[in-house]
């Protein structure tokens, strides 16, 4: 299992039965593979689907059935289609229980920055800003550091924000961290790591709870 799959598997455990969830592009997309198989969770896709299934196996594609990233997908029992206005009414109106989202940076107060690197990367906004700001719970799934090893979990975001104070939980290959009024609380750490390693790779100060974080 790749580290991305490990993150996705741990993230899937955050989903309660009956939840309405949205899976952003990147690692969040992998979460679908680790959800229970019994249609007890409904996946929302920004392009107007509730009850989206897994990615479609080759040869079974329906030209009219894609996710928001353009991938061909299947449909689960209880699914419905709707227009783009209702799709985001669902998000902004408070009916999306959890959004899983990737990020470039996240701050110790739960600020999220994932949509623009001025002068380098500015493909637009998409649905991310609304998902970040309005999901009842926002779970960031991300590698703990950048490819060059720099921390992504910072005291303050340096990049322009997607939304302020929106992140509830951060899940990486090393740790599960909750954003609380007391700061970033290290809820769990990966089996193969230790608290010192996690703290070293995190710029923001981490609160070590008592009892200490369990392994996942």
């Amino acid at each position, binding site marked *: 299992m790749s580290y991305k799959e490990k993150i996705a598997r741990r993230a899937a455990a955050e989903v309660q*039965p*009956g939840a*309405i969830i949205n899976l952003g592009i990147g690692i969040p997309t992998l979460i679908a593979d680790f959800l229970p198989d*019994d*249609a*007890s969770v*409904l996946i*929302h896709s920004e392009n107007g689907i*509730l*009850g989206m299934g897994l990615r479609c196996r080759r040869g079974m594609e329906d030209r009219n059935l894609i996710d928001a990233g353009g991938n061909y997908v299947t*449909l689960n*029992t*209880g*699914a*419905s*289609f*709707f227009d783009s*206005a*209702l799709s*985001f*009414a*669902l*998000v*902004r*109106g*408070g*009916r*999306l229980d959890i959004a899983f989202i990737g990020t470039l940076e996240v701050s110790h107060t739960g600020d999220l920055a994932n949509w623009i690197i001025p002068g380098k990367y500015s493909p637009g906004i998409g649905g991310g800003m609304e998902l970040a700001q*309005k999901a009842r719970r926002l779970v960031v799934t991300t590698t703990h550091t950048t490819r060059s090893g720099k921390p992504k979990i910072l005291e303050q975001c340096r990049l322009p924000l997607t939304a302020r104070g929106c992140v509830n939980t951060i899940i990486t290959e090393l740790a599960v961290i909750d954003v609380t009024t007391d700061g970033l609380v290290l809820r769990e750490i990966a089996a193969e790591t230790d608290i010192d390693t996690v703290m070293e790779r995190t710029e923001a100060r981490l609160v070590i709870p008592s009892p200490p974080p369990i392994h996942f």
Partner: protein
Amino acid sequence: MTINKIKPLQTCLESVTDGTTIMVGGFGVPGTPFALIDRLLETGCRELTIIKNEANEDGMGISKVIEAGRVRKLITSHLGLNATVIGMMNRGELEVEFYPQGILAEKIRAGGAGLYGIVTDIGIDTLLAEKKERINLQGRSLIIEPALRADIALVHAAAADHYGNLIYEKSARNFNPLMATAAGNVIVETEKLLSPGQLVPDQIHTPAAFVDSIVQLESLGSEYGILEQHVL
């Protein structure tokens, strides 16, 4: 474990208390959730704020709750077919706030869509505009209408599945799909209960995400039937 939002009629309104704000679907008889309204009356809760297109006709539906003195404020569009409620309004026994019908619909829709308001010119040259918040936009003086949400929405559907996917029938659709998005607790009575998968995904009017409880109607009472005074 699949999703199952079915609840018994007797317990579906447990969260109503004195002072609750409740949206009620329907435009005339079609789409009015008479069984849920009767249950609301039985709760005995008072000082309610009701949001409904009209107040049904005298002695029917939401009018029964208003006539019983349970409603402090009614947010509505037109009471032309209900002399009893107009009388209560005129005697000061009921506070009534009127909106143009489509603006009432848009205010509710905006609440459901997580917007804070809409900008409109409807009623701009009338009494209605007098106390409204204004804004200048593109050289026009316009009205800001704040969004409307409720604690509870009572909705009537023609058919529902256990997930809470809904379809409405003919002119019984009206305010129901809008109100089904605009409350923290959306309670639906349905004429038919279908197994998940029986509704065609392209034909669903209200997706399951918006619905909290489904009550299956055992039978349709006489209030759901033809109103003799409107027969040719």
